[in-house]
């Protein structure tokens, strides 16, 4: 039971301030979503990151209405998450997920 999968997470474009000002994180994600008993997908990952990795109270700078805030790009293994199924993408061990904000000063 309670097995985990290693996933590499990166926050850039200003999002790192919400996560201890740290750009790269290696996490051990529960391999299944306990609320659904389904394999962990990106939707579950986002929720998990909010509950377990975010140190800043401003959750709405990362998620809005149950998904990543518009203006934040998500890359799954360096590809646009829209090409990979977005929240429904099931994470594999060793996957890399990058969150890039386009909302900060440029």
């Amino acid at each position: 039971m309670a097995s985990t999968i290693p996933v590499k997470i990166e926050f850039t474009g200003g999002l790192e301030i919400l996560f201890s000002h740290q750009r790269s994180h290696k996490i051990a994600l529960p391999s299944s979503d306990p609320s659904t008993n389904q394999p962990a997908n990106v939707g579950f990952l986002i929720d998990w990151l909010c509950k377990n990795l975010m140190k800043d109270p401003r959750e709405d700078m990362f998620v809005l209405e149950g998904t990543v805030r518009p203006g934040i790009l998500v890359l799954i293994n360096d590809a646009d998450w829209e090409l990979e199924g977005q929240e429904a993408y099931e994470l594999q061990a060793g996957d890399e997920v990058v969150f890039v904000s386009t909302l900060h000063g440029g």
Partner: protein
Amino acid sequence: MPPRECEICHTNRAQILRPKNHARICAPCFIAIFEDEVAETVTSTNLFNPGERVAIGASGGKDSTVLASVLKTLNDRHNWGLDLVLLSIDEGITGYRDHSLEAVKRHSEQYDLPLKIVSYADLYGWSMDQVVAQVGKKGNCTYCGVFRRQALDRGAAMLGVGHVVTGHNADDVAETVLMNLLRGDLPRLSRATSIVTSTPSAALPENGEGEIKFTNVKRSKPLIYAYEKEIVMYAHHKKLDYFSTECIYSPEAFRGSARTLIKNLERIRPESILDVVRSGIDMAKLVPGAEEQNSQRACGGENKAAAAKTDEGDGLGGCGSSKESGGEMAAMEQKLLQDEEAQANGNEVEIKMPKKTVNSQNGVARDTQDAADAEIDVKNGQQQSPAQQTVPIRTKEEKKSRKRGKDAPPPKQKLGQCERCGYLSSQSVCKACVLLEGLNKARPRTGIEVGGGD
């Protein structure tokens, strides 16, 4: 599921979903097509002249970093012969620009482009830290924003560069279009959509032998058709290092809401962003005077161009630019209007500010101050002692004839230039000069004489 292949090369795995046309392409094809499209924008609009000196307004942020990287690449690839320089503005906020200027310095080395940093202290005699010390934290964004509008033009003129490019992207322009639509400001909407936001002013004489006056600096935005998403993707896949932050003083208001609206629309229908930009361009053609404005900007559309800058900031991020507080700006407009009223009522005071004092305080302000003085001289059509900057007193009769009567409605925006610095302004004295006057009045060490103007 098996990885989907790139629609262009049919070899690599698709990594990017293009917002404008839903194409699924690989990173190398994306980088190539992104660069080609910027090149197409530049060549189809004849944006540059061969050999032209062009300053890239560089903040170290994503947009200007990508702009610098792409222009450098294209200039080399297509032999455009541009003399490119990075131009950064240091507002003088302790701890705020430090990291972004470090990024710009790295870019200068990485892209082999010379870097010039000019500070608010250079340009205005006041750093933002000094402004904050004077006026407090509340309201200082207004100063930052107003100073910023002219900073790139002034900085470019100091360097003798007549053309500044900024990193404004399609999302920025769509935001501005929406904001002006929501405010019912169609004239300003039409200005915002122009790829060139100001052209050299024919109204002012050349300053000496081909010297560039800051009121003659051309501004343009080569990334106007590039999605912010693609700019970020380009930076990501080219592994460009850029700096992102929020200004420590930045508020969010009307533009923030417009931005949120744009991003929400993009998620549902990504074409919306370019469609808003195109709609803005099409609507601009319907605005009375737009034709004259677009074809003959050099002959009197200056204040419109200035107003467009007003809305856009300089694409350098930070306080008072893209995140400018609408409410705060509105309050300042009100204040400036009241000041004008006070002037009209004859409450104006004369200020004589020994220039040496200002310079000795700031050390580096001399050139700019000289340039500003030169412009005042040109504007007044008379020589003044370089040792002092005099604010002319107008007689009440002059004022009456220039200003509205007490019960008349506020003046309509009209073409014109600041009578002090020559900058494009719809008021007789531009906001920067009004704010500077207030700051300099309050600065005890400048030895200001306040004469009885009433």
